[in-house]
Structures are given as C-alpha cells and as structure tokens.
C-alpha cells in the first residue's frame, strides 16, 4: 500500500483528531495507581514486601476484570531509602503521570515529605504503615495501627504476666519518644509505674551497661520500642546475660521486619508483642493469601505487617472506586468515608470516617520458636489516640500532624 500526500494528510488529520477527542466513554483507558516505596537501600526489608503486595493486589484486581471495566496500571518509583527522592517522585506522580491514587511511604519522614504535594494536587494518598499517630488530613487515608491500638492491648497483658514496675527502652527519634509517652500513660492507667526510660540513637549496639542499670532498678517488666538492626543487639545481649528468664520483655516493634527470625529461638522465646498480622494466623484467608503470595513469585516467610496493610489498603480503595462508580478524587473519598470495610488475611479493615485511620484487629502474640504465635485476637480496635484530636467531619480542612497530649 502506498500513500500519496493527500491521503497521508487526511489519515493523519483523522488520527490526530481521534487523539484530541474527549476521553470520556473510552472504557479501555486504564486507571493509574502510583506507588512510592523504598525497594532498595536500608529500608528495603520493609519496602520489598510492600511492593510485592501492591503488585499482587493490582494483578488480583486486573485478573477479576479490572475496576469499572478499566484495567489498573502501576506507576511505581523506588525511592532508594533516600528521603530527597520522595519529593521528586511525588512531583512526577502528580504532574507527569497524573495518577488517580498514590499508595506508599514507609518512614514517617517520607510520608511528611510527600503528603502536602498530594494534598495540593488533589491526589488521593494512602499511607499503609503502623506509625506514631496524629495525622489529620482529609486527603490521606492511613491503613496501619497507631500506638493506642497496639499499646493499649499490649501493656495490660504484659503487666498481668509480670508486675507493676516497668522499665522502658526506646529508639531516640519521634516514633520512640512518642511511643514512650504512650507506654507511660497505659502503665499508669493500669496502676503501674515506669521506673525509668532510656532512649538510644539508632546506631547504639552495646547494651551491657543498660542491662546492668536495669538490674539495679529491678523492674517487673521491660518494654522495648527499639528500631533497626543495631538495636536488635539488645535482645541478643539480654538473653546472653541470662536475664531473659528473670524479667519478662515486651516490644512494640520486634517482628515487623521479621526480626524474630533473625534471633534464635532461645533469644526470642517469650517476648510479648501486639500487631495486626502474624504469619501464623490460622485462618483460611491467611493460608490462601500465603499461597497466592508464593504463586506470584514471593516467599511467604517475608510477608510482614506492612505488606498486609498495603494489600488491604488497595482493596479498600478499589471497593470505594466500585461504589463511587468513578476513580475521581471527591466521590472516592466520600465512598471511603461511608465507613467502608474489607476483609483480608489479618481480618477486617474498616475506614474510620472521623480520622481516615483504620479500625483493625489487634493480636496479642508471643514469640515462640521464631514464630509470632497468636494468643488472643481483639477485634476492631479504634484509633483512639488520633480520634481524640482529629475530627475531619467537623474540620474537613484540617491539615496537621497533632502531637497528642498524654
């Protein structure tokens, strides 16, 4: 077939015209989901399972025919554990890619780096990580447990197993500082007393003197919101000094990055924790999810709390899109605010309309044989800390991270 100049112009104009046609009514146009996670660098132990969960959720949705008969397209960026890249990729997601929704962010610092960009460009944003609580912004939905949900359950149980005198060892940045205050509150509420609180920068790896100090304070219980690889040494040195069988230990962080699989059974056994998810949950949903995870090329032993949160958050968003009948910002937010629930491997996640946080199940667990054995499930815990300061129904224009007075 040959084209002369006239035919070429005619066809060309027609094609160009088609391109300029309004996009409404073209069902095959995909919905764009943006993802922004650290899948390399020092936080990749958290980010990689989240990325896998995100891809799994999207392929599940696409295999089921997509959303509103449209396929979902992923725009994923690896921020390489570098906070500066978050701001840059957030601009690309909102301006160049013009995505319909963004899921991502791991550290609180990364969330705060992109939250305002999302808000200004009116891009719906989901943050799917357990964090220190208090963010109040109608554009963000947070699908992870806050201190009140976790500590409120953990402290009374741990105190019942041990006694009233509590010693706190916390990581020295905003998470640890805020967590220590929450622990103090719940210890007092349960008639106990925090005898001392020590803070440790993230690179402290030598806890010998601390262990001696703890012994001279002689508490009944040690609570340790310690973060990262260096702090893992505490649990090791605690066991090595033979203290493990003398004073019980609880943690709000151990196990989220699957640290309990790094500690040996002798070092980890008996440590009390409370989270939303454990790989040991004996539900058919969890078994099916683990099988699905492996079928998609993952390793089920790397599934963590954040991965489950991410998967559930994407399903929550998808349900809202279905109910709204569109992926546009405002109708989807309204659908989410109707108190939407989805069921997942870790039980039900419900959107709390007042705070845009998640109402979720919290499980009391004990580490045994390098596994987080579930002792008790407390269904549908409210994010009470954030609810105390944030009411998006009354103040829809609120845009603050509150430091909650305890």
């Amino acid at each position, binding site marked *: 077939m040959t084209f002369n100049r006239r035919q070429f112009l005619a066809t060309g104009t027609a094609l160009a015209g088609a391109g300029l046609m309004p996009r409404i009514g073209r069902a095959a146009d995909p919905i764009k989901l943006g993802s922004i996670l650290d899948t*390399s*660098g*020092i936080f*990749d*132990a958290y980010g990689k399972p989240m990325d896998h969960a995100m891809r799994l959720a999207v392929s599940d949705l696409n295999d089921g025919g997509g959303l509103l008969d449209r396929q979902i397209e992923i725009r994923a960026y690896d921020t390489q554990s570098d906070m500066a890249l978050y701001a840059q990729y957030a601009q690309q997601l909102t301006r160049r890619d013009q995505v319909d929704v963004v899921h991502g962010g791991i550290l609180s610092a990364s969330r705060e780096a992109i939250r305002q960009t999302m808000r200004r460009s009116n891009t719906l944003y989901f943050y799917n990580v357990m964090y220190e609580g208090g963010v109040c912004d109608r554009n963000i939905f947070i699908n992870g447990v806050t201190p009140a949900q976790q500590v409120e359950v953990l402290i009374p149980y741990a105190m019942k197993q041990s006694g009233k005198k509590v010693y706190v060892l916390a990581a*020295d940045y905003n998470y640890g500082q805020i967590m220590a205050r929450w622990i103090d509150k719940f210890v007092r509420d349960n008639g106990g007393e925090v005898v001392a609180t*020590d*803070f*440790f*920068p993230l*690179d*402290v*790896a*030598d*806890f*010998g*003197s*601390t*262990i*001696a*100090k703890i*012994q*001279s304070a002689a508490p009944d219980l040690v609570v340790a919101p310690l973060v990262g*690889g*260096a*702090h*893992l*040494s505490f649990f*090791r*040195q605690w*066991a*090595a*000094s*033979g*203290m493990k069988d*003398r004073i019980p230990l609880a943690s709000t962080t151990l196990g989220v*990055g699957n*640290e309990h699989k*790094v*500690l*040996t059974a*002798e*070092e980890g056994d008996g440590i009390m924790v409370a989270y939303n998810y454990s790989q040991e949950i004996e539900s058919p949903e969890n078994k099916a999810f683990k099988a699905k995870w492996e079928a998609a090329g993952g390793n089920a032993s790397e599934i963590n709390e954040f991965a489950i949160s991410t998967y559930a958050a994407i399903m929550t968003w998808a349900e809202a899109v279905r109910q709204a009948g569109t992926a546009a910002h405002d109708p989807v937010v309204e659908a989410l605010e109707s108190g939407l629930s989805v069921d997942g491997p870790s039980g039900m996640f419900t959107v709390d309309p007042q705070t845009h946080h998640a109402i979720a199940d919290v499980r009391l667990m004990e580490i045994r044989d390098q596994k987080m054995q579930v002792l008790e499930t407390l269904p549908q815990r409210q994010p009470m800390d954030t609810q105390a300061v944030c009411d998006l129904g009354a103040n829809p224009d609120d845009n603050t991270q509150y430091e909650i007075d305890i």
Partner: protein
Amino acid sequence: MDLTIVIVIEMLYAVASLALISVGLAVVFGMMKVINLAHGEFMMMGGYATIVAVNLGINVFVAMLIIAPLVVGLIGLVVERLVIRHLYGRLVDTMLATWGLSLFFIGLATIIFGNTTTGISTPISGLAIGNYQINGYNLFIVVVSVLLMIGLYLVLGRTRLGLIARGTMQRPDMASGLGYSPERIYMATFFCGSALSGLAGAILAPLVGLVPTSGGAYIAKAFITVIAGGPSLIAGLVSSASVFGVIDRIFTFAMSPVIGEVALLIAAVVLLRLLPQGITARFFRGRM
C-alpha cells in the same frame, strides 16, 4: 558491692572492645601509614565469615578465632596486591581508594547476604555476680583482647620477624639494603592487619545484629583510638582505649549511653588539643 564489680567488668569490657576494634587499624594505619577507611568493612566481613561458617556446622570458636581472620586476611592480601601496593606513601590517595573499597564491600555483602540483619547467638552463657546477671561473653572479649595485646607485644618485640617488620616500616631502604624485600614485608603486614580486623569483627558478631553497613559503626571509634594513642602501637592502643573506655562507661552509668558517647568524643577532642601527637608521644615514649 555487686554493682561495683559489675561496673568494673563493664569498664574492662569497654576498654577491651575498643582495643579490639582498633588493633587491625593500628597495624595498617599506625605502622604502615595507610588510611584504611575500609577497616569497618573488614570487620563486617569477619562477622559474615563467622556466621557463614557457624551455619555450615563449624564450631563457633574455630569460626571466630581461625576461619574469620584467615578469610579476611586473604581478602586483605588481594586488596593489597591489586590496590594498596600502588599507593604506599600516598596518604590521601589511600584514603580515597579504601573509601571506594568500603563502598564496594558493602555492595558485595548486600548482593551476597541481602540487606537484612543476620546473626548468631553468643556461645557463652550469662553468669551471676551476687544479685546481678552479666553477659559471660564480655569476659571472653576481655580475655581475648589481653591475649591479643600480649601476643602482639611478643611478636613485634621479641621475634626477628617483628624486628624486621618494624625496621622496614621505619627505613624501607635500609631493610632493602640488608636483603629483605620491603614489598613482601608490607604485604605480610597488611595481611596481618586485615586478619586482626576480621578477628575483631568475628568476635563482636554474636553481640550484634549484622548488616552489610555495620562497619560504619566502628570506623570512627577505631580511628579516634588509634590517633589518640599516638606513635607507639601497643602502649598507645592500650592507653587510649583505657581513657576512652573508662570515660564512656562512667557517663553511661551516671547518665545515658548517648551522654557516654558524647563524653568519649569530647574527651578525644580535648586529648588531641593537649597532646596533638597522641598519648604516647608524651608518655611511655619509645615503648612499643
């Protein structure tokens, strides 16, 4: 009384572990004047060598005391042949080259072991002192450090090998004139320095959660200890490790670990202001 004993043991441990993490650097930097910024990574590799060996079923003490130093020493040998030997006498260049090496080793370890925390548990159980429980492994570290210092003193001071090594470091031309090959002596010394770094990393491995970037935690302290120690290898190491270790523990017990680290760094600044050439430039002169 029990608490006093515990604190004294903790101080001994702090001094011993400072000396341990610095001894490899003291040989490579103190003797050979090679600023080895990859020192921390040599330690990290010693840790990984131990963990791999233990996971293969080898006795943990064999892994720590024999396998890890050998493995890291051999890695050091390769590094010396490929990179360092071209840079003797070029202080700043060695810094740049070894910094590159440190990034390379971090990357390599990440590729092989992944960017996750690994570890083994301590092979010695805790022991009771009155009402207190202490980590028995800390005493092991003290013993190893003391033996290491004595061993180093005997090798360097009482054997012909040590004499040749020291002589070569001072006057390579004279050593060469007497029929010794400085190049081979440098090579052997770098091997020993790397092996000592590997040994330190191996011995500390059971106490920490190891990640490929673990080396960064040691490098600053090691340099401070070696520089503050001054020209004498062993006397300098022992004296500066004692000063810093004791100061660190006093403030750690009295206040918090953060203040302990701060006090250590302030002590280092003050010390270098008063004794810019290091402790052994003024005291214990002429000792080893």
